[in-house]
């Protein structure tokens, strides 16, 4: 059990939930989040947005029952966190772009922060696409060499893949697939963060299978981050 520090509404059904405690986690990993007893049955997988010495933060959008309960949490309410789970983004060198669409921007904040600390990273650009209005631009700007915001269009329109050695992307599958396709034939390596429905979150139940060129993978354990070209998109 951990306690809520704050649960800030950012507009457009998006919230920033900050929880007290010293938590572990790498960029691209997630926690199974639960703020209720037995119902709903399953915990919800949510990416780590940020980790500080005494807190962990999740950025989420209300889409259904579970996230609705999260949105009603108040300071000092209890939350159960299991994790960190999964295989996050790799540590890389050279020029890196982070490309997020909608709630897909959530894990890219920790990624930006961690990559910025790495001397091997020469350039770090962040691309974010939103439907109506951008959020948290100042926060991402702190770590990005350049920040590109796209509203109600295609975030990939702004992207020149050849400028980068690595691209980390998270968001709608069609968007990630198009980044992967843009990078085909180039030297740019694309890593995607896949979302699948989960039950156990630890690799024991096989409900989160992601089809890849090397066979079935567990999104929760082998992923959620995969090499983009390996994944068969839905």
């Amino acid at each position, binding site marked *: 059990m951990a306690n809520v520090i704050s649960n800030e509404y950012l507009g457009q059904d998006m919230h920033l939930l900050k929880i007290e405690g010293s938590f572990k986690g790498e960029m691209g990993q997630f926690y199974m989040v639960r703020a209720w007893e037995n119902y709903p*049955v399953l915990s919800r997988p949510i990416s780590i947005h940020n980790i500080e010495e005494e807190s962990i933060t999740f950025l989420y959008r209300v889409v259904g029952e579970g996230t609705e309960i999260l949105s009603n949490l108040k300071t000092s309410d209890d939350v159960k966190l299991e994790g960190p789970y999964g295989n996050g983004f790799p540590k890389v060198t050279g020029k890196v772009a982070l490309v997020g669409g909608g709630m897909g921007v959530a894990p890219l904040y920790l990624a930006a922060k961690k990559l910025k600390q790495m001397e091997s990273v020469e350039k770090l650009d962040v691309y974010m696409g939103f439907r109506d209005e951008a959020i948290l631009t100042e926060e991402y700007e702190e770590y990005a060499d350049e920040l590109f915001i796209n509203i109600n269009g295609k975030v990939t329109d702004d992207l020149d893949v050849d400028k980068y050695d690595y691209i980390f992307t998270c968001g709608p599958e069609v968007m990630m697939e198009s980044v992967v396709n843009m990078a085909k034939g180039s030297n740019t390596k694309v890593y995607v963060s896949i979302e699948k429905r989960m039950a156990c979150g630890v*690799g024991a139940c096989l409900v989160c299978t992601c089809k890849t060129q090397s066979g079935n993978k567990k999104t929760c354990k082998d992923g959620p981050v995969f090499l983009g070209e390996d994944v068969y998109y839905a």
Partner: protein
Amino acid sequence: MPNLKVKIASAEFKNPIVMASGTFGFGREYGEIYDIEKLGGISTKGLTIKKRDGNNGIRIWETPSGIMNSVGLENPGIEGFIKNELENLKKLDVTTIVNVGGATLQEYVDAVNLISKEDVDMIELNISCPNVKAGGMAFGIKEESARNIVRVIRNITSLPLVVKLSPNAEDIVRIAQVCEEEGADGVSLVNTFKAMAIDINNRKNVFENTYAGLSGPAIKPIALRMVHEVSKNVSIPVMGMGGITTWKDAIEFIMAGATCIQIGTANFMNPSAGIEILEGIKSYMDKEGIKDLSEIRGII
């Protein structure tokens, strides 16, 4: 200290808490999270003679107080299991149950022949999986087909044999009796209930297979009733399951007649559910002055 040991044929369990097939992998993953050696037993993911990739499309869907799954017996095959998982599982101080499935009688036979050469504690014959197109549950619906498969399998293995029953059976009590008549050492029940969900926005079935298996707290009262009915009508041990989430649920199943209880969906609600249920049972026994679970088993 209350005595929690139970026995089914030659298989000994240090306590009656068993992790249900398909919800606990081969023990590796939860083993990274807590001390799973405190558990009584682990039933593996359902294994088939050939490796299976499982079903396409959505595999899990929530419903009030339950979940529906359509994994479709994805598994590495018996050989893959023996090669990559068995060693690790055997090292653990828990009773190892190998859950075996198949599409045809021959597949069951081949799988059981292969696994019977290994040092495992028990076979759980899964004739109740609702998520495969051929075989699986079909063997567990009618009395004659259940009798046939249990007879054949009993003849080829000397390992303790528990048959896992489907709540979708025409008459689950009859099927359990048939298992006993054919020499099974026990029965386990229930597997998931055949269920369904429709995505009204897309006007489509949620699951590619149309039907899926319902588990979790939603099925507990029916599962409990079935465990009770079966326990009253067979003399072999019963492993009871279906929605067990708390130690109180577990005690209910034991009072209904279960020798062991299995925990499935509750692992997803709380990874250490098994340990918490075990601790709960112990303090209940202490408080009530119960020395051995046999004092309350089947009292209803």
